[in-house]
């Protein structure tokens, strides 16, 4: 009995130990990044490295925006471009995704299960796999190096997932409310706008935040479809900065924190849905 208890305690200790190691593996790089943003250039270049800065400074954060020799000259531009592209994409993805999701959830159309399956598969192709043909087609349309072309690509690649997410949300919403609105004289469209949409605020915002997040940090298509310095997004600007200046790691860290903050903010609201979305099995 006693040996059994020691074995149990040992197993428990081992579990906690491995758990803490895993947590450290995840957290240490993040802490390293966050602290680096507040270090002076001298501390960043010191060998051997200093874990704790001798002096805490916010200069890197100011340099990111204003330092003309680094990325400062264009950072405002990148930030503005990315915000604009992300907002427009999100509006379109929400509209299209919500409509498709609602239609599929409310009416068993001929072939709606086929459509759902096709959307599920389509979502897997959203990476850089189709980058080359999309680039050629966008060029032929005269949309190369324009934000319109990029937004178009995002719209097509993000909508399948958005539609899936809305579909599963609308399925949980009882139909009776819309029927009641209809009996009160609403058209189905009116019932959708006045009853369904207000009730689905949370799920619609989730779809929107997902789209914002994806667009905000997207890399392959902005690398393929944009060229002019003034048109670039934050991702590409940051990537170029990283390969051009190998020493301003504190500025890189500060820029990363600036880029990451909106995402952390979004994360606070959507954490639950992310895990659900990732576990495709949970979407029903």
């Amino acid at each position, binding site marked *: 009995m006693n040996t059994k208890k020691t074995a149990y305690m040992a197993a428990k200790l081992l579990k906690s130990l491995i758990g803490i190691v895993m947590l450290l593996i995840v957290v240490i790089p993040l802490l390293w990044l966050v602290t680096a943003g507040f270090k002076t250039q001298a501390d960043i270049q010191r060998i051997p490295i200093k874990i704790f800065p001798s002096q805490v400074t916010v200069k890197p954060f100011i340099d990111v925006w204003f330092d003309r020799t680094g990325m400062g000259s264009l950072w405002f531009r990148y930030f503005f471009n990315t915000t604009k592209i992300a907002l427009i994409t999100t509006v379109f993805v929400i509209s299209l995704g919500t409509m498709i999701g609602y239609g599929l959830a409310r009416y068993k159309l001929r072939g709606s299960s086929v459509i759902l399956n096709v959307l599920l598969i389509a979502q897997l192709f959203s*990476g850089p796999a*189709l980058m080359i043909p999309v680039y050629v087609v966008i060029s032929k349309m005269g949309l190369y190096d324009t934000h319109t072309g990029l937004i178009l690509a995002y719209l097509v690649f993000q909508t399948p997932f958005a539609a899936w997410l809305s579909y599963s949300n609308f399925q949980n919403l009882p139909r009776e409310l819309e029927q009641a609105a209809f009996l009160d004289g609403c058209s189905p469209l009116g019932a959708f706008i006045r009853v369904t949409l207000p009730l689905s605020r949370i799920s619609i915002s989730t779809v929107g935040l997902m789209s914002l997040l994806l667009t905000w940090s997207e890399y392959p298509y902005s690398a393929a479809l944009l060229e002019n310095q003034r048109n670039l997004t934050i991702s590409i600007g940051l990537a170029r900065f990283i390969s051009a200046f190998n020493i301003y790691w504190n500025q890189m860290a500060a820029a990363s924190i600036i880029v990451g903050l909106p995402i952390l903010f979004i994360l606070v609201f959507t954490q639950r849905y992310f895990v659900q979305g990732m576990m495709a*099995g949970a979407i029903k």
Partner: protein
Amino acid sequence: MKMSKSMTYDQQQKRLSQIFVFPGFLLIMFVMIGVGLYSINLSFRDVELLNRSSAGSFVGFDTYRTVLEKEETLITIRNSLVWVLTGTSAVVLLGILTGYLLSDSSRIARLSRAFMLIPWVMPGVVVAGLWKWMYNTQNGLINEFFVSIGILDKGFPFLGTPETALIASSAVIIWRLFPMYALGISASIQSIDTSHYEAGRVDGMNTWQEFTFIILPHIKYQIMTMGITNLIWIMNNLVFINVMTKGGPLYYSEIIPVYMFKLGFQYGKLSQAAVVTVLNLLILGIFCTVYFFLYRKSQKSDQGGK
């Protein structure tokens, strides 16, 4: 009276649904299939970046031959295999282990779960930049760590050495994906009915038996569907290699998406890049089919369990 009204309601709703679904769906399909077919067309021609507005001339399988005869192609394929296999298996194994550890309700587990999503949602470029710096020989955290515990005498260029560049890069994508995988696993483990554990305890199961006979069967579809999703993500990753090594040194860390990007935009050989696109789509198609069947099966088993 009521009957006829509810019928018209159904009909009207049906029309609304059709109006909602088809334009958007057809747009997506039109673009995706169109673009896919277009890459096949492109792969049988000789279009280059400089003459991209012309259609190029039809050259049959010539471009395929050119691409497949290149040494770079073969090395890229080998690299991709290594990248995908190491990446996916490490994500799955570490993910199951960590997910299991995170699934209890202790304070550490709850605190850890809060951090697990961050690597996954951080912009890829940020993660790549961070790790590029950590691998730095001069003032990188990783080298400093190895030197201080005595494994290395001085900083080792992990990303600049042919033998280690690919593995060192794959550590980064593993770091990004395994915590997310662990979250999925732990959520799945938490959904197991406690009565199963009680029954197990009555039978005198130890922790290991509990894991293999109760937990593992319950999460097996989760392991597979998330495994395939991660595999597809790893296979289709461009940003890490592009930012950290650019496929180098030479092409020792080049994987298919990076190769596609390089062929198309650096070498300017769009048709050759299209050949790689087509081959990549074929492989992707196989994995998607597997994913689809696993997904269907897991849905069925879920319904059967209820």
